[in-house]
């Protein structure tokens, strides 16, 4: 029996070691993965798929003529070896031929996400379709919102008048001037970050965040009746849904009067 006992002990020892190692290892990975503020190159797959497929070869980095892209190094607190860019210092210049995308061997940067069908039915690269992130504005710090004339971000934007427009409102403080404030439009903004780089405040008042972080998500039940396209969704409604709450059984007047 001692042989068998020894065998069992050894097996448990190995399993224990493997489990400990595996746990430490996955803890380390989870730690590094919780870096949601990372901005990926144009045409990147959704973050989860991107992390699974990117082989960390750096070919996108080498292809970028502006050296905007870098591979995350250990210590950057980003998933090690994956490409990203930092708009304030080195934004994406939205190259027309998007050299960083077709070189990707794994398809982590997907051409079809930044291509459009031309009239001849062929796919053509179009950098304006990129969705790397979205610029958001700190309206309390942005000097344009304070009534000081500045349009640095507006002029820097490659999609000027589409991704950023300037909106004119009355300056109620002086009573005789205009506030000319930049406004970002999420349908057009690619997240390139040229605006962030151009911003004149010490720390940029307009900055790029990943879309999932910066944007909310509406629920199906809100329909803008004044928007014809949105109104169409009414037709999809199939059944009448009544929300049940603990108060649903009683009349409003009754429970409102309860406290009296």
């Amino acid at each position, binding site marked *: 029996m001692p042989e068998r006992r020894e065998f069992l002990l050894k097996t448990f020892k*190995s399993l224990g070691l*493997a489990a400990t*190692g*595996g746990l430490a*290892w*996955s803890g*380390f*990975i*989870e730690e*590094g*993965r919780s870096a949601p503020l990372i901005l990926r190159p144009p045409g990147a797959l959704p973050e*989860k*798929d991107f*992390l*699974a*497929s990117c*082989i*960390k*070869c*750096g*070919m996108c*980095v*080498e292809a970028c003529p502006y050296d905007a892209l*870098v*591979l*995350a*190094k*250990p*210590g*950057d607190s980003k*998933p*090690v*070896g994956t490409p990203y860019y930092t708009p304030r210092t080195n934004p994406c210049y939205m190259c027309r031929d998007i050299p960083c995308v077709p*070189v*990707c*061997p*794994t*398809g982590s940067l997907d051409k079809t996400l930044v291509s459009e069908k031309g009239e001849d039915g062929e796919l053509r690269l179009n950098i304006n379709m990129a969705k790397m992130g979205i610029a958001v504005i700190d309206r309390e710090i942005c000097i344009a919102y304070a009534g000081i004339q500045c349009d640095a971000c507006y002029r820097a934007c490659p999609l000027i008048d589409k991704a950023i427009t300037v909106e004119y409102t009355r300056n109620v403080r002086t009573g005789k001037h205009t506030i000319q404030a930049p406004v970002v439009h999420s349908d057009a903004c690619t997240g390139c970050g040229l605006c962030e780089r151009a911003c004149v405040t010490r720390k940029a008042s307009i900055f790029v965040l990943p879309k999932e972080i910066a944007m909310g998500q509406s629920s199906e039940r809100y329909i803008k009746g004044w928007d014809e396209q949105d109104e169409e969704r009414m037709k999809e409604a199939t059944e009448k849904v009544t929300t049940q709450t603990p108060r649903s059984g009683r009349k409003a007047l009754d429970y409102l009067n309860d406290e009296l």
Partner: protein
Amino acid sequence: MRKYKYQIPRRLLQTGILFVFFGGNAYGWSVLRGNLSSARVFDTIPLSDPFAVLQSFSAGAVIASDAVTGALVILLFYAVLGGRVFCSWACPVNMVTDLANRLRRLFSLDSVWKSWDIKRATRYWIIFLSVALSVILGVAAFEWISPIGALHRGIIYGFGFGWTLVLMVFLFDLFAVKNGFCGHICPLGGFYSIIGRFGFLRIGYDREKCTSCMKCIEICPEKQVLHMVGRESGAVVSGECVNCGRCIEVCDDDAVNFINIYSNKIHTKCKEG
């Protein structure tokens, strides 16, 4: 010179590959672009690390054909060649662990510190763990912590804190376990052991010429593969042999040599021995 007739070309190749990659990034040379994870030769032939691609697949990624083709090219190349040629002729970590080993010998550390007893088969467990964790976590698990990646990416794009990983491997090999990382832990080495099992380029041993000095066993980073030395003529069949040729270099009696294991000559030799 004869003592280094393989070591010099090995080091030249290992550093050369890194140099060409570095130039690809820094000066736009087109010979090799990318790094050891995935690359392109003259902007056409794709090459990829098959173990990294395997992990990506396990993580549930849909991988474009370029990387898959590249992985097959590399897989086929090393499968035909045999042994762990990647380890001793291409991998930069090999230079680090060889240096640790050299220092161990120089200062006779083996007699001072008893090595930990880790099984050489640990690497196959780590392959299994790499794949299992890739499935569970949805990322290529070994690539995430690989000191090999940290080293070649470090040299090509800048280190960050990556050098700490490499230093860890160095210290582990120097103080803790002899041939610790490459001989026991590294799953990529284990992967190539499996791939290179049936390749043609192997080490042949001739009992007739051997004077039993055992220098080859002493120098070999994977001693277990030379079990026939002193006993009978034959060839190394284990895929764990890194094909570094150190045994050939240290042998004064021409008893060890690279051979084509499928040639008839060795078969008769084996029978004689």
